[in-house]
Each structure stands twice: as C-alpha cells, then as structure tokens.
C-alpha cells in the first residue's frame, strides 16, 4: 500500500517538475514573437495573393539568418488587418492599403510597405475550351452581378469570335474570406461599372449577388479546378502554378491584355506621380495602351513602434533585405518587382520604425 502511494506522489512530482522545466524553457515575452535561446520567431498573417512570394522570402531569409523564423498564416488580407489590430501578430500583410479611416481604428501608427506588384486574373474551367478567353469589363461585372448567366451569352461570344461556348450556367466563385484580392477585383469593377459601384462597392469583403465561396486564393483555385463551368479571380501565380488557363482583360484603352510582368509594371509606372505622394495609390484600370488593368501593389503593415530591440532590428533588417535582395525572387514567381522609385521611398521609410 505504502509503495503505491509513494509511487503516485513521486510520479506526480516528476510530472510537475517536467512541466516546470518545459515552461521555463519557453521564455515568456509580451507580444506575438518570442525569443527562445537563439531563435527569434516572428508571426505574421494576411494576404493570400502574396503568400507564394512571402513564403519563398521567409524561407530564404531563414536560410541566411538561421536564428530567425518568420511564420506566415495565409488567412486573407482582412485577417491580416484584424490580427494586427488585435495585436496577435508582429506584422500583417494586405493587398488593400489602409486608408486614413482604417488607420484611425488602430491603437498605434502603422507603416505600410509595398512589397511586390501582383496581377489578379480571371480563371475559368470550361470543359472543351482550352483557348485564352477575352473578357470586357462589362462581362466581368455582369457575371458577378448575376446578369450574365450562361457561357454562350452574346457579350462573351462577341469578344471571342471563333470559339464555341456551351449553353451552360456560369458558376461564379468568389472569396468567402476577407480578401485583398477581392478588394482589387471589386475596386476595378467599381471603376468600370457604375452599377457595381452602387450595388456592391469595393472592400475586402462584400455582399456578393451570386456565386460560390472559396476560402483563400487556394480555395478559389481549388473550387474552379474541380467545378466544371466555374469562373473565379485569383493572383496570377495561382493560375500558373496550377496550369490553369487565365483570360485576357480589356484595359481602359480597349486592348485585351494578358497579364504578365511587363504590363503590370507599366501600370505602376503610369502612376509614378501619385506614388511619389502616397504609395497607397490604386493602380487598377491604369491609363496606357499596354497596361494590365487589374494590377495591384501588395503591402506589409508594420507597427511604427516596436519596443523589443531584437524584434525591431530583425524586422528592419528583413525589410531592407526584401527591398534589395528579395526583389529578385519576384519575377520567377510571376510577380513584378517594385519600381526603383518606390524602393527608394521605402528604404527611407524603414527609419520610421522605432
């Protein structure tokens, strides 16, 4: 009897000691990141549009700075903004820049860094149709307003002579989560369709008149991939990585453009003057004969004030790396690197983090 009791007490003591040891090992600090002996973990979350390049950057940065682990959760721009506001991440990522009204909802100042340029492309899955389809802005708005219901609608066939469309319902797919990609897409639609602007508007999350929801760019691509006659909008790299056809979009001068690095960069260049004033400019439906109309910057949202010195310096170092070395990773992943003008502005902006 006595041995059993002593045994139980001993076991309990050992368990508690182990627990104590484990908790001692994890050093507690206020704030999202932590410093274990040697390893700094930073937590970030947000945009799925930029997920492929951030994932590559953080992995590469970790290779060259093995004591820094940057975690990224691809939960959508809305999530990045919300988690940053709640203080549960070190920095956020969003395709939609924070306007002054949104900035006002934050407890402290936020510095925004454009990282790369992306393009939002229309993807589709029509069995039997392999060609690159052409879409006018009215068709795009019409599909998501529910006014253009079938693939062989005259508005679509007119823009695509010679292609045979089946008489099947279009399945529009949208982002069910709070998404910067949605912001860019609806921003474009609001500019080209007054009806869209009044009926739906543009934000990371809107009230969609029709369609299916997919979670994240990954979800939308997945749903379109698996659902015949589906139609969706995602960042260019998702279409390429999944070998899906993506369409041409008609720009403000009437030309049908297929998204590529060059014509996205052109969109940024056309806004050079505005960029000098504020890098939060919207570059959808940009002027110019060869610009891709649904282009966007994507941003990292960094708190201006970071108390912990190690974390602050690491973040500043990463930003510097990202603006210089990191930009070369953009092209292989079908993102356009930042124009030099923006890089210069932002290298100076790093100093605002203190």
């Amino acid at each position: 009897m006595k041995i059993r009791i002593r045994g139980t007490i001993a076991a309990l003591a050992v368990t508690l000691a182990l627990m104590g040891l484990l908790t001692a090992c994890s050093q507690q600090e206020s704030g999202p990141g932590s410093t274990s002996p040697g390893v700094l973990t930073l937590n970030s979350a947000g945009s799925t549009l930029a997920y492929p390049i951030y994932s590559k950057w953080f992995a590469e940065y970790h290779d060259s700075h093995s004591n820094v682990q940057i975690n990224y959760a691809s939960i959508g721009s809305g999530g990045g903004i919300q988690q940053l506001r709640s203080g549960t991440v070190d920095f956020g990522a969003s395709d939609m820049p924070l306007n002054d009204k949104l900035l006002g909802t934050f407890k402290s100042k936020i510095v925004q860094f454009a990282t790369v340029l992306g393009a939002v492309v229309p993807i589709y899955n029509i069995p039997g149709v392999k060609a690159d389809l052409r879409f006018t802005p009215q068709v795009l708005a019409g599909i998501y307003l529910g006014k253009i219901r079938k693939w062989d609608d005259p508005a679509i066939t007119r823009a695509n002579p010679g292609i045979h469309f089946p008489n099947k319902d279009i399945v529009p797919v949208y982002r069910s989560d709070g998404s910067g990609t949605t912001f860019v897409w609806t921003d474009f639609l609001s500019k080209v369709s007054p009806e869209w602007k009044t009926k739906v508007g543009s934000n990371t999350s809107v009230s969609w008149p029709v369609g299916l929801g997919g979670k994240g760019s990954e979800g939308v691509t997945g749903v379109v991939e698996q659902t015949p006659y589906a139609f969706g909008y995602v960042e260019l790299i998702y279409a390429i990585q999944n070998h899906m056809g993506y369409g041409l979009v008609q720009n403000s001068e009437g030309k049908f453009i297929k998204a590529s690095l060059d014509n996205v960069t052109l969109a940024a260049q056309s806004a050079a003057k505005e960029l000098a004033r504020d890098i939060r400019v919207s570059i959808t439906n940009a002027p110019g004969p060869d610009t891709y109309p649904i282009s966007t910057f994507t941003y990292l949202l960094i708190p201006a004030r970071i108390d912990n010195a190690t974390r602050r310096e690491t973040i500043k170092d990463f930003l510097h790396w990202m603006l210089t070395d990191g930009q070369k990773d953009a092209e292989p992943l079908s993102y356009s690197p930042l124009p030099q003008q923006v890089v210069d502005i932002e290298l100076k902006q790093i100093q605002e983090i203190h």
Partner: protein
Amino acid sequence: MATTTRILPPPSGKGKGGRRLSWLQRLKRGDEIAYLITLVFATSVVLLGALLVLQLWWQSSLARQAFGWHFLVSSAWNPVSDQFGALPFIYGTLVTSGMALLIAVPLGLGAAIFLAELAPRFISDIMTFVTELLAAIPSVIIGLLGIFVLVPILRVYIDPALQGTLGFLPFFKGPIYGLGLFAASVVLAIMIVPFIITVSREILLAVPTEQREAALALGATKWESTWKVVVPYARSGIIGSVFLALARALGETMAVTMVIGNAPLISASLFAPGNTIASVIANEFAEATGTLNLQSLIELGLVLFAVTIVINAFARLLVLATTRKATSHG
C-alpha cells in the same frame, strides 16, 4: 446507469469511539483534504461552464445592443455597411441538420433494429463495434473525403438523378455544383448515423422480452412484433437518440465547411451553396473586419450554444425516461 445516490455516506467526522473530531483533527486524518481537493476541482468544472456562458455573453454585447432580436430574422451579412443578421446561417443550419436527420434516421433505425432484433449476438457485437469506430473518425477527415469523393459523385451522378426524378419540387431545382446544402446534409448524415444506431440499439435491447413474446404469441410476424410493439415501447428513447444526433449535427463544423459552398444565401434549392452557423464562424472568425463583425460572429456562437443546450437536455431526459421505464418494468 449513473444514479445520484451516494455509495457511502459522507465522511462523518467521527473518530474512534464515536467522538466528534475537531476540524483540524479531521484535516489531519486526510479525509477532509481529499474532500476539499476533489470539491475544488468539481467547483472548477462548474466555474468553467459559467465562465463560458459569461464570456460569450459579454463579448457579443456590442452586437446584441446594435441589432437586438432583429439579429435572428435579418438576412443581411454585409461587412461593408456593418449590417449583420443571423437568418441565412440559422436557415442553413436547420436545413442541413433536418435533411441529415431525414437521411440518417431511417438508415440508423433500420440498422439498429437489425442489430438488436435479428442479428446473432456475435455479428451484432462486431457491427456495433465498427459503427462506434465510425463515430470516432475526425470530422476533418470526413470533410477530406467529402471534397474529393462525395462532391464529384454528387455532381456527376446523384444530383442530376435527383433533379431528373424530383425536379418538380423546388428543393431540387437550380444549378448543380456538387458543393452545397445537400452535400453538407449527406456528410452530416454520415457523422450522426452512428449515434442513432448505438443509442437506439441499447434502447431496443432494454425492451423486456415479454413484450416481444406477447406479440409473437398473438400471431404477429417478427417484423410486426418489432415495428408495432417493440419500437413504440422504445419510442421516447429513440426520439431521444434522434435529438442527441441533432444536437451533434448542429455543432458540426469542419466537414460541413469544406463542402457547403460558403455563401450567405437563403434558397429553396438543396443544390445551392449555403452556410451554417458553425461554418461561417470557422470561415470568418480570424478575418472579421471590425469589432461589430467579430461580435456578431460571437453572438452567432451564443445562439448555437443555446440551441444545442436545449436540445441536449431534452434528449437526455427522453433517453433517461425510456431506460428507467424499461428497467422498472423488468
């Protein structure tokens, strides 16, 4: 099985010779310590429950003030204009759970009857064992199979067949995506059928044999004896198991989220995409834009919680009533 009577009387606090011990002496004896320690833990369970309810209540206060009871009947869900209403999600939850019950109850009851009345003990035990394993499969794995196996099968074979035969009903009209309310219902049915089977089987086994024998002695066939005598006798318990399954279905999240199509819509067609309370919380919680959005989601959680509690309580009462009736007659 668990009664509320104590096995032994509580520590009497009387020492050798029957003298009343002082509190300190009782403490030293260790009984009081044991009692106190276990009491503390038991109280912490109660506190945990209270804290849960309170937290949900407090953290949804903004939303409750903004919308009031209108929340339950409004179908707006617009983060741009900060208008939130629960109706599409209540609708989706009720429709998917209801449809799941429609599929699972006949299937489950039939299987339970087979296992309780017909199958030899050995086979019955093995099949029940397998059914309990089905209940143990994590929801996300069922969702995984839902996306890759069930949805294509529904889209290509079953949904068109349903639309072909029953397409005159508003439930089966409309475009077919594979994903949608019907897919979610099937997935839920798979998840709740084990509960119906295991509980119903227990209830049926608890029905006294005299009932069956009496029916058979009067010339009934086996089926008539089962359907007209045994099952009605066990009726309240079986209904209890159905409510239990319903409570489980209402709160089911992952598998539903993966196949329901994630659209805050109310539509008559079962093939349309929709959303349940649990799946919209799972989708939007981490991304809620603004405090009102977040609190509306928490309020949704509160609604779901309240409904599940009521149904659970009802279910357990029914099950308890039947088993007590059965054992008291035996």
